[in-house]
């Protein structure tokens, strides 16, 4: 093997170089988009206004200011309450989907996905119409104000629910029927088999779900911004310090504090994921529920109540956007969709958001998929590939507010050669891409893992360069996952507020930020209209995606069914 034909080594040599080049490029890309900005933020938090090193003085001042430090408790209270409610509800609904014979499962799953398509500002706006001083159900709060922790928890539950449901549905559907059969044969009581089989079986899914929900809740900005009133949380504090008072140092301090719980839950999640491997053996038999009228009925009721709540919240936002002058003139109009002469940028902002969505979807899918391929399917440079994987996992732990602020510190630095990016649509694309990197990376990795590594080996032995194999075989075969990734990126680019709120300029205003500005200035109907517009845009793209996936699955992916 020592003496290879010269032509082969030559080919291999150039291929290896390209591979190394792409790998290094990926590493530099993620360092610039994630590591350097975060470092700039950490540095900022230990500097004073004139940029001199002051050690932990900013942190000391933070903890000595009750108005600021109090937000830690507020954030924890809100996030923990939301976590308990969401995980509980999602568990019941996931159980209904996977373990009962309730009717209309597909319809419910479709309903349950809807909140993801709306910005988190939408439920907050709806809640004002439902429970505000003029709301239809204000008596239900028994004198409590919706502007505060109650509203925040309700709003968060709405838009975090789909995330929890997806994780728990997956966890509950991977079960081994043989265990239940054994339990039944042994005459085990139902509650006992629940405690000893179901719960242990999904414990990792449950832990993972809890931490995902908690992280989403503690880092969310949209809901507390709209409906938090005087109830401050960490995410809104970052915004208040930076935009309201231009106190960047304190903004950095709050960001560091906000980063801690997210990093902790990220670490736990990683630990759990590592244990979860090989939960299910290849001999496991999937469990099929048998009809049980009472149980099926109860779960139908639970699931469809949740579905009705979701529809009510979205319906309220749509209604709010159509009413002439709520609550005094309830005739319907489309004038709130004109956005003329209002804050936020109107339809131009919507167009910018669509542009951002498509750019992130195209660029992001390409970058993320190639990087995932480098990690999973290429060989050599193991430390570099592991480093890339680690970098790809990190964005999940970085809250949007923190990432956005970090970008200001890094890219707006005088003397940074990338300074020109600041204030362009490109920086919004980069930021959004990095912000939502991890889930896409994992999706791509999972899809690539399903492919036999023989493809690469065969390609190499046929002397086909790797990029040809990637383009001709790996990419087409992974197309469903690639489409999933791109639509995920599009929807998130449409709906996200937290990171981009620090980075937009008058030329690159975004629809989601416009919702916030409209609400801030008191144009509630137009704010609702913009949120609804975002929702329907995401829904439209999602529907196109579903149709495309269906067509592709039936055509290009015919081989899947064949086996």
């Amino acid at each position: 093997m020592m003496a290879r034909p010269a032509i082969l080594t030559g080919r291999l040599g150039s291929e290896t170089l390209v591979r190394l080049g792409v790998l290094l490029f990926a590493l530099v890309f993620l360092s610039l988009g994630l590591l350097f900005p975060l470092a700039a933020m950490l540095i900022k938090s230990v500097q004073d206004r004139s940029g001199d090193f002051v050690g932990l003085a900013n942190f000391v001042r933070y903890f000595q200011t009750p108005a600021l430090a109090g937000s830690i408790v507020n954030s924890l209270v809100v996030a923990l309450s939301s976590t308990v409610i969401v995980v509980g509800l999602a568990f019941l609904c996931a159980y209904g989907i996977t373990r009962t014979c309730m009717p209309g499962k597909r319809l419910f799953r479709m309903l349950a996905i809807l909140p993801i398509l709306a910005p988190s500002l939408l439920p907050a706006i709806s809640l004002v119409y439902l429970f505000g001083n003029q709301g239809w159900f204000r008596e239900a709060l028994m004198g409590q104000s919706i502007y505060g922790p109650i509203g925040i928890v309700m709003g968060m539950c709405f838009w975090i629910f789909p995330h929890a449901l997806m994780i728990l549905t997956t966890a509950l559907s991977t079960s081994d029927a043989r265990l239940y059969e054994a339990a039944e044969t042994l005459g085990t009581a139902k509650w006992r088999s629940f405690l000893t089989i179901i719960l242990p079986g999904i414990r990792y899914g449950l832990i993972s779900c809890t931490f995902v929900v908690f992280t989403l809740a503690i880092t969310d900005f949209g809901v507390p911004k709209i409906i938090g009133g005087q109830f401050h949380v960490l995410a809104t504090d970052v915004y208040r310090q930076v935009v309201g008072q231009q106190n960047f140092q304190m903004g950095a301090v709050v960001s560091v504090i906000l980063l801690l719980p997210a990093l902790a839950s990220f670490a736990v999640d990683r630990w759990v994921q590592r244990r979860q491997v090989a939960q299910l053996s290849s001999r496991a038999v999937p469990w099929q529920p048998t009809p049980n009228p009472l149980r099926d009925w109860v779960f139908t009721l639970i699931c469809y109540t949740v579905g009705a709540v979701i529809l009510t919240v979205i319906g309220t936002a749509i209604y709010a956007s159509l009413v002439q002058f709520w609550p005094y003139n309830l005739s319907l109009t489309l004038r709130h969709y004109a956005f003329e002469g209002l804050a936020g940028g109107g339809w131009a902002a919507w167009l910018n958001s669509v542009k951002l969505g498509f750019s992130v979807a195209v660029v992001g899918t390409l970058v993320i998929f190639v990087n995932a391929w480098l990690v999973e399917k290429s060989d050599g440079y193991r430390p570099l590939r592991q480093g890339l994987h680690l970098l790809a996992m990190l964005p999940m732990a970085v809250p949007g507010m923190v990432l956005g602020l970090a970008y200001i510190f890094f890219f707006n630095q005088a003397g940074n050669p990338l300074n020109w990016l600041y204030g362009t649509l490109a920086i919004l694309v980069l930021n959004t891409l990095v912000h939502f990197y991890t889930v896409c990376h994992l999706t791509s990795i999972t899809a690539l893992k399903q492919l036999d590594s023989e493809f690469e080996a065969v390609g190499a032995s046929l002397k086909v360069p790797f990029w040809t194999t990637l383009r001709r075989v790996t990419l087409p075969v992974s197309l469903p996952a690639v489409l999933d990734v791109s639509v995920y990126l599009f929807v998130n680019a449409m709906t996200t507020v937290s990171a981009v709120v620090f980075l937009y300029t008058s030329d690159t205003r975004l629809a989601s930020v416009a919702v916030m500005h409209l609400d801030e200035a008191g144009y509630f109907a137009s704010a609702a209209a913009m949120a609804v517009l975002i929702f329907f845009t995401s829904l439209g793209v999602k529907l196109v995606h579903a149709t495309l996936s269906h067509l592709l699955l039936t055509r290009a992916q015919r081989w899947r069914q064949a086996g």
Partner: protein
Amino acid sequence: MTLFSRSLLGGTVALAMATAAQAATQLTVYTAVESDDLQKYAERFNQTHPDIQINWVRDSTGVITARLLAEKDNPRADVIWGLAATSLLVLEEEGLLARYAPKGVEALDPKFVDPSAQNGHDPAWVGMDAWVAAICYNTIEGERLGVPMPTTWEDLTRPEYQGQVVMPNPSSSGTGYLDVASWMQLWGEEAAWDYMDRLHDNIARYTHSGSAPCNLAASGEAVVGISFAFRGARLKSQGAPIELVFPEEGMGWDMEAAAIVEGGGNREAAETLLDWAVSREANELYNEGYAVVAYPGVAQPIENYPEDITERMIDADFAWAAVNRERLLEEWQRRYDGKSESR
């Protein structure tokens, strides 16, 4: 080629290049003008100066002021068009404004021009119009909840207003700050803090923007919104069930003003904009929303504004309000910030 045709050709090319260069002139303008009107302001300006494109950066007074201060070493704004005079005085103190006497500034009411101009300097800023405090009162909700229409500032501290009053946060909203500054000037500092302590007990929340309290009153989320006349008049015309109350003690006011940012780019275009901002034409534009404008004799009465509004505006001391701004806002935050909206 003859000399004549050559010079003609050269001239045409030069002209074409000049037009192209002019069409590309972009001005970054920071403003706190109500966003309803921004497009209109730019359009009117472009009717006479189509060669200058205005890129607006709009936020509320406190945020724009803080932003200008934060960008002091590396200014991103070229012009400020429509920011509170109290803020401009602070910015002038920090050396952020370039002195320039716009063409035709002599025609303006001297009260509306930077006072330092009277000592022979070029003014650092020029006024546009006055915006005046007002209370928006929702008649329907007031009747339903038994909350009477207030007639004075003092009324708002009475127990029946508990939790029914919304007011802008003075550290972010210019309207909020003019309220605080006017109470200080009406009653003296001590009495004003005492008044605000009592008012604070009745406040449902402090909003980020000066428009929001009136919007909240108009939609029935609050009964009483401490806001400003412009927003109240607009909302009433749109059919909101509100009455505008101009308190008997007198109303605070502040001036919207324009200035060139020192060290900003496009000085020539910036001066063109300032020249236009003091013109009669521009003042007629301001008058479409504001009852009191800088150019004498231009102002026409506006729907839903009282005729005698000028007499009821207090004798505002902007210099005092500017010098004490930071101190008063710090004290305000210390006392009341807990009820502020997140921003």
